[in-house]
């Protein structure tokens, strides 16, 4: 269920950006063309449609919050309700009971999200900047190298072999950071962004003034490309925050399990229990780890809320980044 909810909420994110984009285009039109161009009726219809869409996106999450505040008794008797008969904060009490693991996982998630995003942004921008400069001789080769991985990937097992046996990352925090750090698609986006937004003449003047390549990158390119960088930073933040699969593969150590992975584990254990009732009945340890319905929803809430809250801060860059960064050559 959390997986579904996550995808739903990520749909919610992308939908609302679409909406924002539409709104932005509307505003533009109003500014430069006939202000009365959009007929009020059309305007109303579009607004209502988009409004419904927005509600549809937010509703599931809203529902999850309500269920997390419903008493378990009420869920068992009446199922999920929009306005439950009994409210309760038992679910959050329950989570407080497992605070040790929860805080630990929160810490891991925050750490990999911050460090991962920083590493990821630097790796991607360095690569993308290099292949965006015509002075770089092998840029075609390296562009192709990145592009190639978008078409063909090694697959799960070879990736696993590389990470665990060649790099020896199993059960280290780096196993959660490095496999996600590089992303060919973002490289292509950033390359296009650098090509479009930074004109060669600025760089030339910087060079004439005696700036080194490093200085050019950090003092000129970086500030100029902030919208694009913020976009991929947000993408990687979301990617790291929501990632549970790498932890499933590479982490056995309970101390290193990130939040989303913890959620997935609980859900997967529940599924296992359903399919193997005979084993489950004999396993008190399994029963003990299974939270009640409302507690599961409460976990979804605390796992999703921070990222949802941080979204508005990125939004400004995100929109301009998307509109500019779209591949157009």
């Amino acid at each position, binding site marked *: 269920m959390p997986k579904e909810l996550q995808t739903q909420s990520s749909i919610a994110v992308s939908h609302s950006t679409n909406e924002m984009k539409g709104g932005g285009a509307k505003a533009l039109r109003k500014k430069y063309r006939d202000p009365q161009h959009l007929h009020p009726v059309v305007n109303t219809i579009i607004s209502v449609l988009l409004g419904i869409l927005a509600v549809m996106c937010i509703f599931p999450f809203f529902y999850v919050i309500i269920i997390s505040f419903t008493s378990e008794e009420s869920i*068992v008797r009446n199922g999920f309700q929009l306005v439950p008969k009994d409210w309760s904060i038992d679910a959050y009490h329950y989570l407080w009971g497992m605070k040790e693991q929860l805080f630990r996982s929160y810490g891991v998630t925050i750490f990999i999200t911050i460090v991962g995003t920083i590493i990821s942004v630097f790796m991607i921008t360095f690569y993308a900047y290099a292949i965006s400069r015509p002075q770089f*001789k*092998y840029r075609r*080769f390296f562009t192709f190298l990145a592009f190639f991985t978008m078409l063909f990937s090694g697959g*799960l*097992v*070879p990736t*696993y*072999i590389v990470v*665990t*046996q*060649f790099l020896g990352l199993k059960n280290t925090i780096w196993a959660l950071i490095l496999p996600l750090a590089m992303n060919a698609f973002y490289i292509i986006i950033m390359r296009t962004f650098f090509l479009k937004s930074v004109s060669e003449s600025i760089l030339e003047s910087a060079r004439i003034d005696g700036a080194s390549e490093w200085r050019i990158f950090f003092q000129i390119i970086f500030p100029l490309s902030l919208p694009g960088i913020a976009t991929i930073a947000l993408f990687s933040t979301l990617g790291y925050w929501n990632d549970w699969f790498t932890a*499933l*593969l590479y982490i*056995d*150590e*309970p101390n290193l399990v990130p939040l989303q992975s913890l959620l*997935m*584990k*609980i*859900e*997967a*254990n*529940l*599924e*296992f*229990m*359903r399919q193997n*009732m*005979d*084993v*489950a*009945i*004999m*396993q*008190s*340890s*399994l*029963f*003990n*780890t*299974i939270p009640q319905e409302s507690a599961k929803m409460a976990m979804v809430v605390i796992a999703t809320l921070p990222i949802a809250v941080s979204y508005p801060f990125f939004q400004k860059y995100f929109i301009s980044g998307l509109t500019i960064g779209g591949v157009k050559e």
Partner: protein
Amino acid sequence: MKKRLILLLALVLTIGTILSACSGKDSATSNKEGKDGQPYEIKWYTIGTPQKDTDKVFKEVNKYLEEKINATVKMTQIDWGDWAQKSQVMINSGEPFDIIFTNGTEYVQNSQKGAFLAIDDLLNKEGKDLKEALDPALLEGIKIDGKIYGVPTNKEAARQTVYTFNKRLVDKYNFDISKVQRLEDLEPMLKVIKENEPSITPMATFKAYLPFDYVFNNEMPFAFAIDGDREHVINQFESDLAMETYKTMHNYYKAGYLKEDAATSKDSWPMDVENWFVRMGDSQPYADSLWTRAAKYDLVSVPAEEPTTFNDSVSGSIQAISATSKNPEKAMEFLNLLNTDPYLRNLVDKGIEGVHYEKNEDGSIKDLPARIDRYNLPTYSLGNHFILNLYENDPKDKWEKFKEFNESAKPAPTLGFHFNSDPVRSELASITNISKEFYPALATGSVDPEEYLPKYNEKLKEAGIDKVLKEIQKQFDEWKSEQK
């Protein structure tokens, strides 16, 4: 162009150096371990939620093992729900480790693939005591192409499906459950419960049970009869029994004895919620007291069939030695000890005496809170049950009863036969899909079998069920002739 080639060459060379460096290091360490007097570290993966005190307990374990067999063990638990996917990736990637927990079809497939080591020779040398301790039926049942690929857990080798009742309600209405044998016998009781107990769902969602020996599982239409013709594979959904059973189930469903969403429901009906009257389950000796303990209210069961030794009941828990093990002999020595040495077995299972459990004067034990909170291992997945200490509320003859139960069971027709599905892979794929569609609805009585059962069988025909049946029969006959 030339430069690009040179660059590529350089890249390949670099990668090559890195790779060889890695493998070089590997072989160096493996030489050091084990052979020159230093204790060999056995890597052991097993199922279950990782526990906080594992390191503490295994320090003790290693102290003991170093003395006994000059080895140490690193046990890693993989959580229940992650197990299937994670263990499969580990096996497929050829990761070096020594022992891994496995069961059922996973065991069969990985053995056929060559991921596990055939341990017949090891069992005769390093595992001699172990072989003697095991129920022969277990070893017979897990043979694949005549070879043994893992150490089965010595516990109940047979399976017996039972109807389990909520005892409070049975007593309240004075039901005579001893007469229950078939699904139809439940009818009068369900009716009373439905009328008088509004907060109770008469039947916890279960799928009606057809007593056959299944080649894959009860969803797939390939089965051998347990009584009567045990030599020929049939589609059990074409039997009269299926029609009858599903009709009864459908009547129950219409009468509202099951939840309406039975076919799609994922409700697991946890025992500790008292909202059901009857359910089905797999029994073992003293299962009622076990379940009562889990549920915290009284349960009582009646058998729905005679105990039978099936392939999946013997392969429920197996420790296999990986083909990537660098020292299989040591791994076997450890498994041998684990299954025959009561001190080691209890240490691994229950933890440290005085910390995780207490021993009473009569030798029975009692869990301390630390065992529940910090070292709660799944007993069934570890090894021989018959050398485990008994709990103070366990009956004294528990393990004797287990042995009796195993001896009383009769072998299923396909015990030891493992079908190789390669020749009919595509047919099986579509049959699986069809079964997923029809089976839950039929077995929970959600649809009328008069209409849907023929439809189901027709679809199976179209999907090529006959070809699969023929292939199974062929392999079965071959296997049978080898047995004699």
